[in-house]
């Protein structure tokens, strides 16, 4: 009887494990907060998860090596030539490729895709239109020379890598012209359809998107390049880090993408799971509004830079998720400045405040979005500021709320994160160190504008840097620019992001790249 009971128990346990184990062998199942995806049209995608989706399902003209960013190689374009004057780029399209629909890929699709971004003029359009393309001139500036050759003419002789890196972004995705146009409505280039549809040629193709629920990708068996290993990638929207961890530990997902520090620490001792991390381009900073009477004073700005415990934060609650970084170009970019001249120095800060006539300190507010780790950072900063008599009032809000206020220049201090849009240094120089028009009605509103920082001189320097064709010289220019910026700007740049993921031990080859849109599923294998 007893033996029978034990046997029964074993059977029950066995059945339970078979029933709830685990992900299928040729599927990659991932827990990921994907509720930021609002569109699947590459001409409109401007969110982190959306960009990752496009990177895995669409091809671009060119790509860069995720381990050596300066190595740019051909995608849809086999090769390219740049004219003497630096204005004209000629791309030679690889022959024999097809889209997932079966349609061949030709120069027409490339021209259509780039013109489409310009004509639709959605969020990421500026990545291309900053080269002077307009709906009026695009027929002349982006054109087909023959079925496999495309010529693009830009408005100024920028550093070539600047334009090429921009083409590696989501906005440079190549779309199936025939398929998109077959769904066109009122001359929208198929936009309404493509917001939830798919017309690409990447290693994975869209199977189904249930917004804020799941995203399913299937292997593209007709892919022209190296085919993906796994048959299907299922991304499940799970916003709770604790739930992601639970599912990972039980083997119901293979990869957890959004874990908190304590989840990661908890997983470190689990032999079935491994932790993988990679520095990303995201920069955490304080923006000091120059409309504020205190923050206008150069000594006050300097003092605040000495009132942050960079190392303390990076060694404690940010450990493993961020590194100290104090310049606007993230490590890994051409010309990134790695010097970190500031550290917590209360005496020095007090001296500077005294010089500014504010030895008794002052009261100021900081708009803080309420998703970790930002609130924890804000609390640490509040305590540091207090040491020099500065009373920091934290105003919590959700992301959209704080951002709305920030964009209207109604903040005192804003604590935020900035992610570069493409791999060229101009992306961050453009926003942190350029402000062509500081008026309230300005058309171009970079971060320098949002903090009302009027810098005609620095704008010129940044403009010159993007035109420099000698890469070495160009890097020098950015280094100088950052050194000055570091000292005088109303930006207290503190940390660079590290992306940390946890994966089951049998997963290999999931590529974490340097930017949010260079995480690739194609080479992932399951042992």
């Amino acid at each position, binding site marked *: 009887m007893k033996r029978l009971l034990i046997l029964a128990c074993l059977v029950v346990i066995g059945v339970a494990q078979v029933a709830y184990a685990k992900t299928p062998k040729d599927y990659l199942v991932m827990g990921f907060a994907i509720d930021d995806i609002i569109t699947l049209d590459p001409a409109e995608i401007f969110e982190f998860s959306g960009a990752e989706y496009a990177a895995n399902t669409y091809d671009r003209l060119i790509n860069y090596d995720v381990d050596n960013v300066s190595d740019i190689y051909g995608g849809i374009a086999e090769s390219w030539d740049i004219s003497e004057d630096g204005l004209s780029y000629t791309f030679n399209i690889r022959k024999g490729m097809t889209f997932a629909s079966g349609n061949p890929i030709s120069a027409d699709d490339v021209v259509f895709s780039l013109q489409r971004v310009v004509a639709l003029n959605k969020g990421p359009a500026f990545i291309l239109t900053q080269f002077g393309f307009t709906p009026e001139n695009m027929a002349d500036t982006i054109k087909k020379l023959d079925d496999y050759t495309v010529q693009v003419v830009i408005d100024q002789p920028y550093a070539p890598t600047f334009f090429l890196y921009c083409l590696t972004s989501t906005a440079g995705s190549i779309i199936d012209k025939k398929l998109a146009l077959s769904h066109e409505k009122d001359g929208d280039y198929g936009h309404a359809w493509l917001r939830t549809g798919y017309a690409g040629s990447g290693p994975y193709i869209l199977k189904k998107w249930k917004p804020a629920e799941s995203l399913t990708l299937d292997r593209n068996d007709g892919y022209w390049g190296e085919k993906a290993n796994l048959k299907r990638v299922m991304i499940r929207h799970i916003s709770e880090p*604790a739930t992601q961890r639970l599912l990972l530990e039980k083997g119901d997902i293979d990869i957890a993408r959004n874990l908190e520090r304590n989840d990661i620490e908890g997983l470190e001792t689990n032999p079935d799971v491994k932790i993988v991390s990679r520095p990303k381009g995201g920069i955490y900073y304080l923006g000091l509004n120059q409309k504020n009477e205190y923050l206008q004073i150069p000594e006050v700005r300097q003092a605040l830079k000495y009132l942050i415990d960079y190392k303390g934060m990076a060694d404690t609650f940010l450990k493993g998720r961020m590194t100290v970084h104090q310049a606007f170009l993230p490590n890994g970019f051409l010309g990134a400045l790695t010097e970190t001249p500031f550290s917590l120095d209360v005496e020095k800060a007090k001296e500077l405040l005294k010089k500014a006539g504010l030895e008794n300190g002052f009261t100021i507010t900081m708009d803080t979005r309420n998703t970790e780790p930002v609130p924890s950072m804000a609390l640490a900063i509040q305590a540091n500021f207090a040491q020099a008599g500065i009373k920091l009032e934290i105003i919590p809000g959700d992301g959209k709320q704080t951002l709305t206020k920030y964009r209207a220049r109604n903040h005192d201090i804003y604590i935020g994160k900035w992610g570069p849009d493409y791999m060229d240094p101009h992306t961050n120089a453009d926003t942190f160190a350029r402000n062509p028009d500081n008026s309230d009605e300005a058309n171009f509103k970079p971060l320098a504008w949002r903090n009302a920082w009027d810098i005609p001189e620095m704008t010129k320097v940044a403009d010159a840097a993007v035109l420099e064709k000698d890469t070495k010289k160009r890097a020098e220019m950015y280094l100088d620019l950052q050194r000055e910026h570091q000292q005088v700007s109303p930006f207290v740049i503190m940390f660079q992001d590290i992306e940390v993921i946890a994966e089951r031990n049998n997963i290999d080859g999931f590529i974490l790249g340097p930017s949010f849109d260079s995480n690739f599923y194609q080479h992932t294998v399951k042992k």
Partner: protein
Amino acid sequence: MVAITFFGLLLITFLIGRIVPIDPVLSMVGDKASAETYEAAKIAMGLHLPIWQQFFIYLGKVLQGDLGVSILTSRPVLEDIIRVFPATFELAIIATILGVVLGIPLGVFSAVHRGSFIDHAGRVVGLLGYSLPIFWLGLIGLMVFYAHLDWLPGPGRIDVFYEDIVDPVTGMMLIDSIIAREWEIFRNAVSHIILPAALLGYFSLAYISRMTRSFMLEQLRQEYILTARVKGVPEWKVIWGHALGNCAIPLITVVALSFGTLLEGSVLTETVFAWPGLGLYLTNSLLNADMNSVLGSTIVVGTIFLGVNLFSDFLYKVMDPRARN
């Protein structure tokens, strides 16, 4: 009366949606869009018009069944709600069945054996169900039954690799999998619904048993009960027939209200269990400043409440001759 309530509901939700310090255009175009893109989107969304004009345009559209387009999904809000609602409905139905089947007998027992151990235990169970945060119970439930014991599957309506095999007919996974004769999927769906439905059922049980108990106590004090007992009617018939029979009418309202609350009140449960219903949809819309979806879901929930109330009033009238006058 219904029209006025509905109008009030629309007006208030609309105003709240416009007062919150969130810019819906931003969520549409993203943080880095140019000024022209931003303006174009603003005009396309009709947000450049005066607020009263926006309201009447919105009202006109709602009356035609157009709740606008969701930013989050790029699809009409009404279509979204129709897509996600069956998941919530399925969960609420099962929870309500559990609540009724267990809650009414528990309430009756408590009333009959007033002051006994069963009564006290029943009240403690009811009190806990009423006062413990349901999402917390949900997390505990997952920890115990999924993480530690491995008896039940984790969050979600179905295991991820079973997704998209069954064609949606009713949208309710249990029924659709039966229609498709996919027994493996049916079994999987059942195992997934047990925990969330049990939790919500517990919540509903707590309310129903408490109300049943007080209705019963009132009935048991009445003279006709005494009369029946004197006349020698068996005790079970006195309790389950006479007394409970007279509680049936107010209980209908209680069950209807509890069902309405489950349809709308499962927001946190759905979030914890990653249950893709109306509650999760509403949470995601809120977090993404997707105002059309938030307003749309609120109106739908409000309308359901109105409907449930009307329906229970109607039943009341059918069943109780006194209410007809």
